[in-house]
């Protein structure tokens, strides 16, 4: 058998493509959900860490540190296989979404914090001097500037979340990787795995490129 028949078998590819595409849909749904939840959670965590009073603030710091320390795979396995012992049984999708967004929120929080801290002190002072309320100060003056600063690192984090969705195959979630391994077993040929790898790259490569472009543009505009 030639190398093409083994790794790039057209017949196998066509046969297993529908399975791969259904896996891709699941992967995208999981990734996008986790990215959005992680974004919102990260923003809230960053604001609590920066501006809340002491006990709440310590909670946010502890959360951020713990969830940046735990491997996502370990967290996922704990959520899926350990929580049922206390009566909390999540679907594979819910378990994977939880694990990914809990961790993504912690990383996003640190990115947002850096972004907010990069807004010059004079901006806060000008907003104070106008008499803007703390919410207006954040919403009108600080966050619009901070979000612009964090676009590249937040996009980078989103790429990581997208990649980490592959871990969900461990909890029997029918994502792209899981479907590909399944298809490989059925076809007794590794072509579906190669196809899955190519699909991951095709989806994420443009985003990786985008981060580079955004970083360059932000650096040129400077301050």
């Amino acid at each position, binding site marked *: 058998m030639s190398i093409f028949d083994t790794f790039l078998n057209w017949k196998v590819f066509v046969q297993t493509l529908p399975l791969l595409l259904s896996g891709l849909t699941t992967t995208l749904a999981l990734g996008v959900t986790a990215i959005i939840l992680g974004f919102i959670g990260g923003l809230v965590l960053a604001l609590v860490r920066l501006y809340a009073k002491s006990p709440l603030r310590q909670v946010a710091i502890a959360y951020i540190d713990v969830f940046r320390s735990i491997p996502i795979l370990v967290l996922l396995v704990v959520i899926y296989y350990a929580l049922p012992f206390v009566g909390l049984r999540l679907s594979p999708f819910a378990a994977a979404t939880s694990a990914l967004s809990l961790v993504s929120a912690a990383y996003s929080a640190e990115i947002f914090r850096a972004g907010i801290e990069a807004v010059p002190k*004079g901006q806060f002072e000008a907003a104070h001097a106008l008499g803007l309320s703390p919410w207006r100060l954040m919403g009108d003056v600080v966050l619009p500037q901070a979000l612009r600063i964090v676009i590249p690192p937040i996009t980078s984090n989103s790429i990581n979340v997208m990649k980490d969705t592959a871990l969900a195959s461990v909890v029997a979630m029918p994502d792209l990787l899981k479907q590909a391994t399944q298809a490989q077993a059925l076809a007794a040929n590794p072509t579906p795995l190669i196809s899955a790898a190519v699909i991951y790259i095709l989806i994420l490569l443009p985003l990786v490129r985008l981060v580079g472009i955004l970083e360059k543009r932000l650096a040129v505009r400077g301050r």
Partner: protein
Amino acid sequence: MTRPIIEMNNVVKTFGMFQALHGIDLSVKEGEIVVIIGPSGSGKSTLIRCINQLEEHNAGAIVVDGAEVGRGRKRATLIEVGMVFQSFNLFPHMTVLRNVALGPVRVRGLSWADAEERARRLLARVGLADQAAKYPAQLSGGQQQRVGIARALAMEPKVLLFDEPTSALDPEMVGEVLDVMQQLAKTGVTMVVVTHEMGFARKVADRVVFMDGGRIVEEGTPDEIFNAPRDPRLRSFLQAVLSH
């Protein structure tokens, strides 16, 4: 005209081990133009930053427009105090028009239409009617500072504070900002100005305050301060700044 709008009583401010203000007593009447001069690090900026509580004083009392401010109190009365900064501090992500209209909408409750009309009027007054749609980064330093003045005026404050408004400007742009401030002084608004521009102090001030080492060393009319300085520190300061 005679009611004090700002009253500072024995105000003390420390930054860690460093004491920036040593018991400041200062009273500013409505409509008065007070110019504060003094060497760098003498506490001039700290003083006016305490008036609108960008710095919280550690002891003493500050009364603005009849209400004591700071030390845990609400900022409500401070809406009546406008501030123009050395580094302009315009909001870079908003147009010039929006920079000026934002405060009136968010704090005074004006509609955007009314606030933008007010903003256009004020921009015309500082000579920038045609720059309303631009972003701050597209303007020169002098133009940005004039927007800063319009932004402060848009809140219709009873007191305007200027923290070295021309110190960050190229020399050729200092004049246009001082002109606007001079026009403003004629309108009856109360102004407290920290500056190194002795010509402005001499021409525009009702009263000049000289600070050194966190204390008010001498105060008086421009004539008294510039033509008959009594304290040796004031004399040597004037000699240093006026000799070049």
